[in-house]
């Protein structure tokens, strides 16, 4: 019933960019509000506009996805501006992740920012970064990839260093910026090498020209450097060093934003660039990027897990666990084969990123809640939290068990789908490494649960306030994590259908 309107007439194609445009406009509106209203009460308005704008973008993307915009049943992907951008099912699916995470972060920031200056700048930077991520998922040319990568990254640097008077925050921002600058340079150099070999920046043309045996060595180096750029954005080995520092130093809502939305954006562009520009089967020998991703996936998930197990601070543990999850999501690229069930593999990875968007954002927002209360940062400081804040503790328990992949939560099914599709593609050893890592991760996730519920409070702390925004965001994320178990069917089916059209 939804198809009718859009199928009848493929509306002016630029309207397909509506989610990105809405996000960008919301960012500008926020700046406008700030110039008119400078009083204290504006915080609620800013948060409401940010959340409303991102939810509107979410709704638009969801509507497009249901209506079939840019998908096969309505005539395939919509190509814009000389193939620089493309709107298809995959970009819309990733837009869902970015926008819902942005909405949760905006609602949570309402309480987190109450005593801070420059709130409008904060919200608008978040929305500009989200705009960049949305464009990143649509980028169909290496030039737009680079530009939108910077659009997503530059606001992030500023956001990490937002707590100007906090030494940790500024240090984290600087580290993030320096590593980001280095990896951008590496990435740009990789693009130039690929351009030198293929003579084009548009992904489709690169793919057509990629089979040039005499330049295979240069192409291989270019591809390797581009992998480095994606590794930075997704916080994978070998460019993961910034993540623990940045996530720990940044304001907790920004940690949530970076580790969920920004990571997903990195995957969105990596999926499209490698699948579209360097198609398997057409590559010259020596440029087999799948092997590189297999190594990265195994190393990233193992390193992230073992590092997380040794942490004493909860936020830092979550930062390393987020690296581990990047390793799981990399299976989406590592288990691809020429002619294999590639749509299933890639789709499962996308579905995992969506579920991860809920459970990981929720976990970091719980940290934000705890920081808001002034409780400490280590596992011991969390002792007995459940007796003072049972509902938030239930939500955090849901996030922890879901991240560990225990039923009955969304993370269980998404990990299962991921490992299952890897086995289906013949990579049972990849699934085995993932399953073992996933089982080990229960150790450090359950430490949080144990501290909250089972240990007695180590010190006296009182919770004076129940911040509405943070509670709403945490409970919303918890419900999402829970409901994605029964409702996982449409998610995985959509993800696998839209992923299959890439091949």
């Amino acid at each position, binding site marked *: 019933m939804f198809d009718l309107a859009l199928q009848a007439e493929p509306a002016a194609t630029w309207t397909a960019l509506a989610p990105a445009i809405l996000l960008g406009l919301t960012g500008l509106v926020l700046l406008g509000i700030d110039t008119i209203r400078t009083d204290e009460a504006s915080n609620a308005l800013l948060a409401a506009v940010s959340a409303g704008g991102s939810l509107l973008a979410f709704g638009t993307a969801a509507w497009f996805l249901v209506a079939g915009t840019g998908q096969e049943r309505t005539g395939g992907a919509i190509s814009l501006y000389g193939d620089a951008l493309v709107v298809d099912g995959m970009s819309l699916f990733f837009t869902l992740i970015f926008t819902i995470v942005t909405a949760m972060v905006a609602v949570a920031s309402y309480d987190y920012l109450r005593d801070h200056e420059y709130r409008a700048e904060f919200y608008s930077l978040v929305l500009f970064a989200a705009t960049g991520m949305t464009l990143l998922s649509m980028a169909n040319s290496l030039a737009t990839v680079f530009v939108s990568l910077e659009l997503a990254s530059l606001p992030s640097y500023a956001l990490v260093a937002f707590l100007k008077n906090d030494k940790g925050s500024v240090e984290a921002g600087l580290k993030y910026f320096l590593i980001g600058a280095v990896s951008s340079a590496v990435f740009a150099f990789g693009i130039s090498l690929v351009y030198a070999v293929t003579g084009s920046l548009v992904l489709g043309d690169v793919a057509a020209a990629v089979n040039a045996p005499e330049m295979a060595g240069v192409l291989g180096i270019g591809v390797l450097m581009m992998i480095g750029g994606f590794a930075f954005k997704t916080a994978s080995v070998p460019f993961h060093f910034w993540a623990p520092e940045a996530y720990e130093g940044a304001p907790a809502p920004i940690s949530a934003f970076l580790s969920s939305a920004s990571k997903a954006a990195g995957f969105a562009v990596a999926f499209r660039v490698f699948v579209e520009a360097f198609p398997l089967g057409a590559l010259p020998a020596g440029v087999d990027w799948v092997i590189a991703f297999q190594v990265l996936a195994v190393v990233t998930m193992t390193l992230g897990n073992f590092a997380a197990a040794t942490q004493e601070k909860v936020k830092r543990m979550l930062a390393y666990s987020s690296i581990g999850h990047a390793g799981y999501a990399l299976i989406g690229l590592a288990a691809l084969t020429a002619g294999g*069930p590639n749509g*299933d593999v890639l789709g499962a990875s996308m579905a995992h990123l969506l579920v991860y968007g809920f459970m990981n954002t929720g976990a970091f927002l719980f940290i934000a809640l705890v920081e808001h209360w002034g409780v400490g940062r280590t596992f011991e400081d969390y002792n007995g939290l*459940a*007796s003072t804040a*049972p509902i938030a503790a239930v939500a955090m328990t849901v996030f922890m*068990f879901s991240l560990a992949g*225990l*039923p*009955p939560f969304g993370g*269980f*099914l998404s990990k299962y*789908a991921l490992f*299952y*599709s890897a*086995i*289906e593609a013949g990579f*049972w050893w990849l699934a085995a490494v993932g*399953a073992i890592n996933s*089982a080990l991760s*229960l150790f450090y996730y*359950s430490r949080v649960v*144990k501290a909250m*519920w*089972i*240990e007695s409070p180590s010190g006296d702390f009182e919770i004076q306030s129940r911040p509405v925004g943070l509670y709403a965001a945490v409970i919303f994320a918890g419900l999402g994590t829970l409901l994605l*178990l*029964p409702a*996982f*069917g449409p998610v*995985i*089916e959509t993800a696998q259908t839209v992923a299959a059209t890439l091949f």
Partner: protein
Amino acid sequence: MIIEALIGVTFLAALVVFVAPDEYAGKLAAALSALPVLGSLWMWAQYDASGNALLGGSIAFETDIVWLTLGGLDLHWFVGVDGISLPLVVLTTILTTLAIVSAWTPISNRESQFYGLMLFMEANLLGVFTALDFFAWFVFWEAVLVPMYFLIGVWGGPNRRYAAIKFFVYTNVASLVMFIGFIALVFGLGDSVSSMRLPEIAQALRAGALGGFAGLDAATLKTVAFVATFLGFAVKVPVAPLHTWLPDAHVEAPTPVSVMLAGVLLKMGTYALLRFNFTMMPDVATALVVPIAGIAVISVIYGAMLALAQQDLKRIVAYSSVSSMGYVILGLVAYTTYGVGGATFQMIAHGLISGLMFMAVGVIYNTTHTRMVGDMSGIADRMPVTAGIFVAGAFGYMGLPLMAGFAGEFFIFKGSFASTVHSAMPLFTAAAMFGIVIVAGYLLFAMQRTLFGPFSFDGEYEITNAPTHDVAPLAVLLLLVIVLGVAPDLFFGMIQDAVNPILSGGGL
């Protein structure tokens, strides 16, 4: 729809109780948990199916809808009961209500969370016993662990953290082993199954549709999967030597949680063994009859010997569960109508009797604040009603005729003695029968020292009759034990009907 209603109402009750004020939580939970009891009894009265749900029999109260599609294997929301699962559903609902009532005295902090978790666990247990899709079943199976972990870890004894973690890690690792084994089996079936529905998988396996997977040929894969799933379930049962989590968990857990642990959670293991290993792969089970029967007999004798060596009343009952579960394994591997049927009946009987024993120990502990055999003597003078029920329950455990324990054990011995799967089965049966002697030994010894003789008690607590709401659940359980002992056919008829299809075909 009745099964969805049953599970849904229980989940809802858990939520309501979780946010209710602590003062009313216990009463509210007991009242709300009466709803699933009524529902399950209604199911029992309306039950009209026949045959085994996995082997083409009719399924009562069935729902089957597609949940999600994944790479050619559909996951279904598929629930229903047959003669094997329905008695366990009834057992779960009744025992939960009684355990909740028995918690009124000992649980005195964070009550609403405690009762909420009890109901949450009940909902998942009902799911375990009714789900007929592997995936839905596994979700419930794992979800039972979470409330149990908290129930032991928050409200347990001094060493509760260690016990809770040990329980959690032990059973989770076991689940992982089992999950991998079973999924490998499903992959080996290839295109001959289109979904994770257990009946489909069971029938394909028994029809010999298994192919190779991951470099293993069909026969090896089947044996490996059997061993992996057997080990996974055996931890839950538990059988020696995988039982070491059990005494820790029982001793640290508060009494009502012990009741659920011994009464229902252990049955998850034997139920799964019956449904998966013994129903789906009878050829492997009969080929491995000597090691399996050996493990069963070792569990019976070793568990009983361990019980004999204990000074803590709760540890005695805990170890005797290992012994009783050994009988169940022996009955299952016998592959006779009385063996497998008796094993299923024994699950119910042991659920009621071990629940009764744990509750009785708990009532004594509530008054004396000690469970050590040496700390008290002649309690029967001061607590005659509790002591009377304790004695009656102990005799039920020993297998006194006209009590449920007798019926269960008698059926098992009759079945395994007549078993034809291996010529040594009568020998195994005879060896296992010695367990009864040891059970009688330690129970009589413990009762003689604590309940009878001249009264002496070192503690500063005054010993008087327990409150009515402590004794009432005991009386109800004793009544049920006697009713099932006098009229085992209340359940045994439907059990036998569901068990018989397992015993022929499928390479037997």
